[in-house]
C-alpha cells in the first residue's frame, strides 16, 4: 500500500499529517452481497491516522457500501474490521460512534424540523451521554450550547443558528451535515459526497472549510467524491474502486499515472 506524502500540500490550511504505519482502520477481506450482486468483494484497506483519503469509483463501484459497512449501517458478510486495533466487525452503529467513527451522508441527512443549532446541540448531548436527561431544559446547558455555536462558527453557519435545517440552501445543508458529524469529535470521519448537488461555485468553499477543520481537528477523513477536481485537489491519498474491488491505491500523482484507473474511471479527465 502506498503511503507517500503528496508532492503539493493540499488546500484548506493546516499541515497534512505524516503517515507511515500508524494504522487507524484496518479492513480485512470484507465482502457484502445484496442478492446475487456482490457490492463489495474481498476488500482490504488500511487507513493511517491523520490521512485525508479520497475514495473514487463509478456508480455501483461499492464506495458507499464500503462506508456503510465500516460505519455499521450494513453488516459484513465476511471479513474483519478493526479500529485502533480493536475488532469492530460486530459492533452496533452506536458502539462504533463511541469508538470514534462518524460519517456524513450522500443524501443530506439532517433533523429537518430542528433548528440548525439544535442539530448540533443534540449531537453534542448524545456524544456526552446527556440525552438521558429528561427533566432539565436543554437550553440550561450553556457549555453544550457554546460548543455547538463554536462548531457552527467554524462552518460559517452561526448566523443561521435559529433557522430550521429544512430552510437552508443545499450547500448550507451539506455543511451542516458535515458539522453534525464533526461535532461527534470522531477520530475517523467518512464524508460521502460532500459536494454532490451543490453549485460549482459552492464546492471549493465547502471543501476548504471541511479540509481546514479536518486538519485542525486532527481527524482522519475518507471522502467519497465523484468530482475528480475536488478529489485530486484535496486528498493526500486516493483509493479507486471498481465493481466492488480496489483498483488502485496511491497518491494523487500515482493515481493520475495509473493506466488502469485512467482507462476505467477517469477517461480524459486526468489529462486536463
Amino acid at each position: 500500500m502506498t503511503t507517500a506524502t503528496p508532492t503539493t500540500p493540499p488546500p484548506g490550511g493546516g499541515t497534512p499529517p505524516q503517515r507511515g504505519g500508524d494504522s487507524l482502520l484496518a479492513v480485512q477481506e470484507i465482502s457484502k452481497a445484496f442478492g446475487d450482486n456482490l457490492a463489495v468483494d474481498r476488500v482490504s484497506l488500511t487507513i493511517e491516522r491523520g490521512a485525508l483519503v479520497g475514495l473514487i469509483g463509478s456508480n455501483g463501484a461499492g464506495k458507499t457500501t464500503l462506508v456503510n459497512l465500516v460505519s455499521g449501517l450494513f453488516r459484513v458478510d465476511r471479513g474483519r474490521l478493526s479500529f485502533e486495533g480493536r475488532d469492530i466487525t460486530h459492533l452496533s452503529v452506536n458502539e462504533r460512534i463511541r469508538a470514534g467513527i462518524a460519517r456524513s451522508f450522500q443524501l443530506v441527512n439532517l433533523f429537518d424540523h430542528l433548528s440548525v443549532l439544535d442539530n448540533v446541540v443534540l449531537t453534542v448531548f448524545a456524544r456526552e451521554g446527556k440525552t438521558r436527561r429528561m427533566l432539565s431544559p436543554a437550553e440550561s446547558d450553556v457549555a453544550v450550547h457554546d460548543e455547538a455555536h463554536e462548531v457552527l462558527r467554524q462552518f460559517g453557519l452561526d448566523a443561521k443558528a435559529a433557522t430550521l435545517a429544512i430552510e437552508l440552501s443545499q450547500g448550507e445543508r451539506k455543511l451542516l451535515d458535515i458539522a453534525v458529524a464533526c461535532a461527534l469529535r470522531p477520530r475517523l470521519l467518512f464524508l460521502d459526497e460532500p459536494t454532490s448537488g451543490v453549485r460549482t461555485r459552492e464546492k471549493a468553499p465547502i471543501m476548504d472549510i471541511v479540509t481546514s477543520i479536518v486538519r485542525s481537528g486532527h481527524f482522519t477523513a475518507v471522502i467519497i467524491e465523484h468530482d475528480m477536481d475536488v478529489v485530486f485537489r484535496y486528498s493526500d491519498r486516493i483509493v479507486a474502486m471498481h465493481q466492488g474491488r480496489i483498483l488502485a491505491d496511491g497518491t494523487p500523482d500515482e493515481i493520475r499515472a495509473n493506466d488502469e484507473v485512467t482507462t476505467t474511471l477517469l477517461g480524459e479527465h486526468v489529462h486536463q
Partner: protein
Amino acid sequence: MSAVISVAPRSMMAAWQLWACAAVIAVLAVLPWIIDPFQTLQISYGLIFAVAALGFNLLLGYTGLLSFGHAAFFGTGAYAAALLLKFLGVKSMELYIVGGVGASLLLGVIMGAVCVRYTRIFFSILALALSQVLWSLALKFFWVSGGTDGLRVPTPTLLGGLVEAAADKTAFLAHQYYYYVLVVSLAAVAIMWLMVRSPFGVALQAIRDNEVRAEFVGVRVRRYRFIAFVASAGFTGLAGTLWVPLNGLTTPDILYWPFSGKIVFMAVLGGFRTFLGPIVGAFVYNYLETFAVGYTIYWQLLLGVILVVLVLAMPAGLVGTAIQLFKHSRNPAR
C-alpha cells in the same frame, strides 16, 4: 410554518408566556365559584383528557409514532383504581394514582417491548391489537372486571384522608375534586413541558425527524422510543385514574378502540404539532361531544361532520392554525 413540532428557536419561557400561564391558572382557580357545577365537571373532564392527549402526543408529535392503543393505558389507570377498591377496599385517591400509574407503566413496558420494534402502520396496528386484547379480557373476565356492567368507584378520600368524600357528591366533585384534578393536571403538564424541552425531548424529535441520522449521532433509537412509550403510558394512565372517580364507573368501553380514536382526535383537532394543541383539542372535543349528545340522537354523525370540517379546514389543528394566522398577521409577506 414547520410541519412538525419545532424547538427553533428554543429559549427559556418568555415573560409573556409566564403571565399567560398565570392568568389561565387564576381563571381555572376561580371558575368553580362562578360557573355551575355541571360546567365545572366539564372542565375537570377537559383537564383529564388533556393529560391523556399530552401523554399520547409525546409519541405522535415528538417521537413520530401514531398509537391506536392508548385506550389500554387510560383504561388500565381507571380499572386499577376500581380493582384496588374492589379487592383491597382502598379509598385513597393517592393510592389510586400510585396503583393506576404503576399499572399503566407496567403495561407500557410490556406493550412497548413489542411495539417499538416497529414504526409507522406496523406500530399503530400492534398497539391497537394489544389494546384490544386488554378490552376482551375486561369483557370476558367479568368476575374480576364486572364485564359490561363495569366497576363502580365512589368518591375517594383526598390528600391521605385530610379531605373526606362529602355527602353531596356533585358539590364534592365540582370543588374539592376539581381542585385536586387541577393541581395534578397542572403538575403533569409542567412535567411534560420539561420533558419535551429536555435533551431527551430533543432526542425524541430527532428520532421523529430522521431515525437513521439519530442513530448515527449516538442516540439509541429503540431505547428512547421505548422510554417515550412507557412515559406516554404513564401520563395516559394517570388521566384514566383521575377520570374514574369523576365518572363513578369504569366499563370496558374505555378500553375499546374507539376510545383510542378519541385520544388521537383530541391531539389532531388541537394540533399535534404544538405543545398546547392536545390540551386545547381535549377541551374542545369534550365540549363538542357533550353538547352533540344533548342536541341530537344522531350525535355521532353531527360530531363526525364537525370534526371532518375542522380537520379539512384546519389541518394544522386549532392551535397550529392560530399560530399560522398570528405569524401571517405579523408578516403578511410569508
